[in-house]
């Protein structure tokens, strides 16, 4: 505890001068503090964004609980300090520390990041630097700390290879413990860092980038990726076969200050049966697996009782797809209503939004409603395989209006493959139809209806059928925005869109290759960090960085990639086959939809990899 106390004293000198200091001191209920003398392996779990965002993330809570359940392993939390805090830390030579022990993370065995979105990449560099750990993997010496990353973004780890010693591809529950066990062995044997990495590469799902060579063609595309030192030619993602039995936390660290999702969260299913062609999560988290009703109920109870939260939300990519959703909600609401707990259901698909479901969630408390038709016309919705019709949308909003709602938020994407101005106008037409539906609903609530239309720029992502597609360029985006603006004469419809510059960088980083690592480094050197925040995002610095590295952003973002091109991520196996993605891409261009996994197997390749029994259980 000596260090904890002396660090506390140093923090006391200035913490009152920073915003919301309780984010930086730990000590919350549910946080795990161990006796250092009895701990063999220490893991700094880093979320490269603010405390409020990171603390809302379920994956972190799962891995935190799981690792700390092993007596001689200690996992602690680390978040990105905001500029006011960082400035103080740098001025006082306080290295980035973990919230439980307040110990500097540079002395830990692992520094592990979860990468949830591309715009957090520069935060990783900033955090490593603030920790006093060399930002470049090639400059690190000694066995520890091993700097690693997991999370959805690492399905294309290539833009990050300069910074990480290894990546954990796929579901982390088993892999993380296996790595920690390996570290225990290597520490005892006193092996080198290289030896640890060589052995780690033998663990299924672990990708050690230094064990792969990449060659390029003259046109700048990847020619080949070659494994060495016994590393596998293809790194196959890990999945949890028995999802119902996998570790789930029965307690959370309950923060002192309000966070983004300040509630209990229970995971009900993993993967998604839908196959919306733009959605990376829909492919990389396959196969689809559900937890048993009893398991979900028991986990909900335990979590609510242990945390004291009066709100619980069911988490998944599409909760409405749970096979017996009505039965599940009935059992859950029996418990939550009795305990005066508010049950919330994010991620409900429009076509699964039934009267019964709405009744269950509005029994306790009313919140705003968001629907995501994604595309404005049936044609474009067929292209993206979002199997939702205008009738589905109208049925849902009618139920909502009957249920007392007046305001609806509609979420769309702009710049989808094959999109025409007609599809863009369709967005407005759909919003207008929702307003008309309000007045056509006999028992609608009093008040004026409102539709908030939110448009984001489509970003092609790896391991989706759209990984071959160009991103719409700036001129195209501006033209569509101007057109939508000019046709909207209804003040009940408010249209907003995301910033183009930001989606361009996101597109570049999503499908970048090893050379983009250099540009990320250069951008960070120029002061880029907290890129996800409008007020901190510096597009001109990013542009300069790419120019200085001799890299063309359009090459990564706006170019159509052929089916034959070797993708920078082609040595990563997310179980979904490339043949399937190509087939789906062709179907998209032909405007043909694909049935969901429950209706018919689309032969994505996952069933073959996992033996088929998991997929068969879907139906």
């Amino acid at each position: 505890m000596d260090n904890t106390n002396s660090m506390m004293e140093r923090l006391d000198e200035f913490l009152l001068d920073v915003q919301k200091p309780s984010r930086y001191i730990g000590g919350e209920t549910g946080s795990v503090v161990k006796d250092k003398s009895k701990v063999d392996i220490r893991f700094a779990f880093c979320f490269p964004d603010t405390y409020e965002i990171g603390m809302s993330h379920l994956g972190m809570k799962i891995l935190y609980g799981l690792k700390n359940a092993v007596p001689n392993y200690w996992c602690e939390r680390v978040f990105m300090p905001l500029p006011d805090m960082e400035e103080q830390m740098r001025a006082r030579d306080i290295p980035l520390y973990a919230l439980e022990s307040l110990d500097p993370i540079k002395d830990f065995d692992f520094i592990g990041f979860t990468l949830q979105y591309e715009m957090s990449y520069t935060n990783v560099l900033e955090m490593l630097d603030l920790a006093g750990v060399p930002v470049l993997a090639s400059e690190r010496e000694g066995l520890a700390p091993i700097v690693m990353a997991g999370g959805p973004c690492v399905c294309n780890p290539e833009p990050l290879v300069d910074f990480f010693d290894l990546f954990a591809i796929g579901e982390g529950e088993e892999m993380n413990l296996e790595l920690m066990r390996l570290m225990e062995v290597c520490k005892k044997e006193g092996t080198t860092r290289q030896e640890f990495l060589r052995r780690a590469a033998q663990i299924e799902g672990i990708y050690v980038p230094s064990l792969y060579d990449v060659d390029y063609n003259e046109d700048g595309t990847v020619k080949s990726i070659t494994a060495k030192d016994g590393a596998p030619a293809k790194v196959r993602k890990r999945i949890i076969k028995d999802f119902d039995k996998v570790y789930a936390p029965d307690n959370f660290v309950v923060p002192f200050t309000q966070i983004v999702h300040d509630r209990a969260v229970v995971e009900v299913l993993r993967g998604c049966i839908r196959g919306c062609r733009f959605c990376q999560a829909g492919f990389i988290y396959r196969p689809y697996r559900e937890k048993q009703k009893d398991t979900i109920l028991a986990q909900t109870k335990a979590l609510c009782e242990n945390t004291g939260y009066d709100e619980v939300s069911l988490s998944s990519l599409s909760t409405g797809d749970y096979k017996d959703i009505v039965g599940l909600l009935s059992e859950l609401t029996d418990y939550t209503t009795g305990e005066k707990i508010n049950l919330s259901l994010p991620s409900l698909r429009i076509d699964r939004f039934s009267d019964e479901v709405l009744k269950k969630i509005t029994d306790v408390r009313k919140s705003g409603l968001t629907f995501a038709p994604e595309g404005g016309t049936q044609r474009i919705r067929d292209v993206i395989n979002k199997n939702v019709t205008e009738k589905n949308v109208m049925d849902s909003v009618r139920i909502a209006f009957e249920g007392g709602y007046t305001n609806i938020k509609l979420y769309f994407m702009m710049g989808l493959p094959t999109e025409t101005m007609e599809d863009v106008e369709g967005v407005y037409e759909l919003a207008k139809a929702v307003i008309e539906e309000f007045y056509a609903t006999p028992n609608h609530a009093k008040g004026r209806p409102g539709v908030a239309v939110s448009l984001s720029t489509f970003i092609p992502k790896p391991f989706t059928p759209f990984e071959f597609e160009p991103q719409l360029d700036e001129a195209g985006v501006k033209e569509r925005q101007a057109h939508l603006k000019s046709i909207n004469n209804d003040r009940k419809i408010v249209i907003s869109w995301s910033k183009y510059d930001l989606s361009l960088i996101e597109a570049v980083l999503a499908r970048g290759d090893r050379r983009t690592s250099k540009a990320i480094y250069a951008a960070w050197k120029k002061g880029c960090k907290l890129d996800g925040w409008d007020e901190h995002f510096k597009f001109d610095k990013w542009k300069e960085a790419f120019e200085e590295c001799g890299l063309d952003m359009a090459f990564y973002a706006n170019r159509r990639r052929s089916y034959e091109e070797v993708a920078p991520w082609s040595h990563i196996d997310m179980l979904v086959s490339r043949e399937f993605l190509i087939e789906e891409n062709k179907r998209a261009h032909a405007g043909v939809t694909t049935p969901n996994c429950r209706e018919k197997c689309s032969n994505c390749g996952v069933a073959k990899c996992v033996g088929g029994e998991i997929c068969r259980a879907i139906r």
Partner: protein
Amino acid sequence: MPSVNTRAFFSKMGRAKYISHLDLSSVIIRAMKRTKLPIWQTEGYNPRTYVTFMLPLSLGQEGEHEAMDFRMLEDVPAGEIRDRLNAALPADIRVTEVTVPKDKNTDITAARYRIESSADPEKLRALCEKEQINIEKRTKKGSTIVDLKQLMTDVELDGNVLRVTFPAGTTFNINPSLLFEAYAAEYGEKVKRLRIIRTNIYSGNREFE
């Protein structure tokens, strides 16, 4: 429903000093929920556990004897309420005593503080011994000049530790950090380390009960 007014005295030390007054209430309410004690909730559409705090503590200050009130729906022994709350609270918030309230929060007149600081003890002594210690006190309504000398009582200075009593309560409250603002103004140097601990609260010339 009949309910029993209940008062808990608690300490809020260490890391808990960074929990703001606003956040403290949700920290306590969630802890109460975890205890499963029969604590009264407001009625209505969004029922809420009802807790009131006697005297807000400034962010960054610690308290050894803070008070909060709530209502029990059943008669649970005081010791059991204390123990169950302590099992559910963060380590740096400890309930020391559970009683039946005698005084109202409007009865609070003063609070005593123990202040450990890096201020030069001689300079601090000289400041405390001045005829007048005028300093600007800012409130939501504006600012006034107060003479701390007239307001501070029972001053004990022992090395780096100052013990002092200031007026406190719902109508007129003096934050002891004002004394160190006066120090900074007097000597042109900010006190780097300042640990302010509220050790007791008073109702007239006796302890608040």
